[in-house]
């Protein structure tokens, strides 16, 4: 390794680029280096920082909502007066009005899914790691890559702007079901749709770029079955984005037409709004929106989870010092997930009255798709068997990903069967289920990835002690927040109630007494407070992470080699941080991605580009 450093000393962006037509200048200056850079690593970091910012913002919206759920109408401490000042009557006396609660709910979902987790898990990590892992000089289309980030920022800005318009941001949930979304009297929905069109376009450009990069720019010898699983996972994810996002874009265009040109794509004949017959031509289909939305929405779930699996796989293989168990099963399972994820969307729609035969079909495909997911998780678990595990921060997060995602997945089974879904649909159980998949699941894997690749990008390690504080705090309080929601949901507490069910519970209980099923017990209501404080502490334990992240860029412990984790994949076989165009010359690949502890070798890892003796 040392030899490599000496032979190819790290070069920064402004040093000579080899035969690159986009880089005629020798010193591109600050703007071309950090803001309008076509370099995949810079774009990856841009995506990463932007999406982490959005994630924090989305988390903050959630905290305000949790306060309102737990203490309806009580002014929010610290931020209440500020909220009233900025948003006016939407936050009277510093408490959330129900409309504002709806806005925050819709925007929390939208921001977390489309502006935080997808851009971080999919775009940021792919940008940073894929070209390095396949031995490519950059993405296949560097300027397209830059355009993709710009479209993403525009989309994000449009979304954020909508908070400040009269009427406020979109209020119809992140799913924006019509006719509700069309008929709510705020232009926030228009902002939401326009923002979505930009975000989707950005996602499509990235997906095209990643697929083209993986197919075209693999280094010599990097055959398909020598690709690290991370690349496979992102490759499948790219196809999901490429093929599932456009229908939502079409749906967004149609809903935009409904809002702006007063068409009736999703508005049925005889639609009444506020007791009045709406002045629309009718003939539209509300179910059409749901089909188009979930045709994206379900592959989207795998867009959220596959990159996380890819990251976990890299980290587990590296820290168990063993080849990952069942590499081919992992690859084929990822492909199977990708294919099947297009056939399960209507399990989100059991209660729409689309018909039992359809429901049975989607129930069956839903059960089938759980098989490859279980295979992947099982492969990871078996990989741990008999290994001497290095428990560093990335590995802790990757290990916690397994049971947390497992819980998210297993609690999804009752939702996949339409008969039990009838009871659980639209309750807190659903919220707990998909947050277990995404929050302690995907986001844990993302944290793992950040701790893992941070030294590659900066040349310095993040602090291990504060990493552990961050990990244990997050692990405990994630569960404090989400575990009680299973109980609340099974007791029948519905989601999307601005007062956390206080009115509903009181009304039902006083009318018919204890025999009414669905009346919420005091115990279930009090869990709201438990969750609120859990969420607050969860926020607090992120502070060490934020400080650690920025502090370590300048002051972290310097890495002692280009390959601090002793990993095998190509991303660790180049200078740190990687220079422009990544490798001095195209690396040649001789072996599979996870050759750890190969008997007879002098060290316990064999890099992919190490020639056979």
């Amino acid at each position, binding site marked *: 390794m040392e030899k490599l450093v000496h032979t190819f000393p790290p070069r920064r962006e402004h040093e000579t680029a080899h035969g690159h037509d986009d880089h005629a200048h020798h010193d591109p200056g600050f703007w071309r280096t950090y803001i309008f850079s076509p370099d995949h690593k810079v774009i990856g970091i841009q995506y990463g920082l932007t999406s982490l910012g959005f994630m924090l913002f989305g988390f903050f919206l959630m905290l305000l909502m949790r306060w309102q759920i737990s203490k309806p109408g009580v002014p929010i401490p610290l931020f209440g007066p500020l909220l009233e000042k900025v948003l006016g009557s939407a936050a009277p006396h510093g408490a959330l009005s129900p409309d504002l609660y709806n806005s925050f709910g819709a925007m929390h979902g939208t921001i977390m899914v489309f502006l935080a987790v997808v851009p971080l898990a999919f775009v940021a990590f792919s940008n940073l790691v894929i070209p390095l892992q396949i031995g490519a000089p950059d993405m296949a289309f560097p300027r397209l890559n830059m355009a993709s980030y710009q479209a993403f920022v525009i989309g994000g800005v449009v979304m954020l702007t909508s908070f400040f318009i009269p009427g406020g941001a979109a209020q119809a949930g992140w799913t924006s079901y019509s006719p509700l979304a069309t008929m709510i009297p705020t232009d926030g929905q228009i902002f939401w749709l326009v923002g979505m069109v930009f975000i989707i376009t950005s996602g499509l450009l990235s997906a095209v*770029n990643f697929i083209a990069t993986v197919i075209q720019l693999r280094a010599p010898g990097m055959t398909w079955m020598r690709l690290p699983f991370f690349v496979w996972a992102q490759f499948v994810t790219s196809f999901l984005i490429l093929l599932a996002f456009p229908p939502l*874009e079409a749906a967004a265009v*149609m809903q935009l037409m409904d809002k702006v040109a007063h*068409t009736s*794509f999703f508005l049925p004949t005889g639609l009444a709004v506020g007791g009045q017959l709406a002045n629309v031509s009718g003939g539209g289909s509300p179910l059409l929106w749901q089909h*188009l939305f979930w045709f994206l929405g379900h592959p989207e779930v795998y867009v959220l989870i596959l990159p996380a699996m890819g990251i976990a796989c890299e980290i587990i293989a590296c820290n168990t010092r063993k080849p990952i168990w069942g590499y081919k099963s992992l690859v084929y399972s990822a492909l199977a997930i990708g294919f099947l994820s297009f056939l399960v969307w209507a399990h989100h729609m059991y209660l729409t009255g689309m018909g039992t035969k359809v429901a049975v079909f989607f129930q069956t495909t839903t059960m089938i798709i759980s098989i490859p997911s279980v295979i992947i998780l099982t492969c990871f678990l078996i990989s741990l068997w008999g290994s001497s595990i290095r428990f560093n921060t990335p590995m802790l997060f990757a290990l916690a990903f397994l049971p947390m995602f497992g819980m998210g997945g297993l609690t999804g089974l009752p939702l996949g069967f339409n008969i039990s879904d009838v009871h659980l649909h639209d309750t807190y159980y659903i919220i707990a289920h998909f947050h277990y998949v995404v929050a302690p699941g995907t986001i844990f894997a993302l944290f793992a990835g950040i701790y893992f690749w941070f030294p590659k990008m900066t040349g310095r390690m993040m602090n291990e002690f504060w990493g552990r504080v961050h990990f244990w705090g997050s692990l405990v309080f994630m569960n404090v927040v989400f575990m009680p929601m299973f109980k609340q949901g099974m007791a029948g507490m519905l989601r999307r109630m601005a007062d956390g069910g206080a009115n509903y519970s009181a009304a039902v209980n006083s009318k018919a007494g204890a025999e009414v099923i669905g009346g919420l017990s005091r115990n279930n209501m009090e869990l709201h407070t438990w969750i609120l404080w859990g969420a607050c502490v969860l926020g607090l334990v992120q502070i060490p992470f934020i400080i650690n992240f920025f502090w370590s860029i300048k002051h972290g412990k310097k890495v002692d080699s280009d390959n601090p984790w002793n990993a095998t994949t190509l991303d660790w076989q180049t200078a740190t941080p990687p220079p422009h165009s990544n490798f001095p010359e195209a690396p040649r690949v001789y072996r599979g991605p996870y050759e750890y502890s190969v008997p007879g070798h002098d060290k316990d890892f064999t890099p992919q580009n190490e020639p056979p003796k």
Partner: protein
Amino acid sequence: MDFPYIVEPRRDTGLYNAKLGIWLFLASEVMLFGALFSAYVLLRVGADPGMWPHGWLNVYIGTANTIVLITSSITTVMAWVSCKQRQFGRFKFFHALTILLAMTFVCIKSYEYHDKFTHYEITLASGKFADGHLVEKSKDFDLAKKTGRVTIHGYEVEHEVELMDMQRPEARNIHREEITIPATDIKKMERYGPWHHTYLAIYFTLTGLHAFHVICGALVIGFLWGPGSRMWKTDPERFTNRIEVSGLFWHFVDLVWIFLFPVLYLL
């Protein structure tokens, strides 16, 4: 480390980067238009009996536009062939034709849009329906204040259903004349805009999105024809690839119209 496969194809895939890129992009475009076509199917299947319109568009104009677009696809191929044969003048000629044809298409499409926006369905106070193109509105015409009158060139029917199927044999014999209706007789007056009927909604959305693609494609081809053609002097092979890639996009836009035409005009 040089950037590979910008011009020459990779051996195992047989593609240069941009060509793969455009095929992937077109795959996503297929899903975009596919979703809109499936929306068309669902709206049509879900329409009340007899309330899905037929023959609202002029088949002759649509045919003419189809021919225009197919011809432009031919000139696009010829432009690419000319590049391959290293005949720059011929390339310029054929792509000039492509751009002209694209503009012709957009003009004809705008005429069709204009025709729809001057077409009114008027619900009369008597419960009948008048339907036709606007001739003139009197100066003081105001529907809300019930003043003035409006003249259309059209006809009256008893039921709205009769306005739907303009392909049925009796529809040929409809006698159109100038009808003047005072505002006091009008209950509701609506143009054939996208808000008028879900058929028109999907018609305007699909053809609007398609026209957007035509315009974008024409802009790209226009760039490659004009300032972008300087690359011919420095790197003719790469320029030829650009013509091929933009041509693939153009054929796709053409292909979408091949589906749009029968679906919207004929069925």
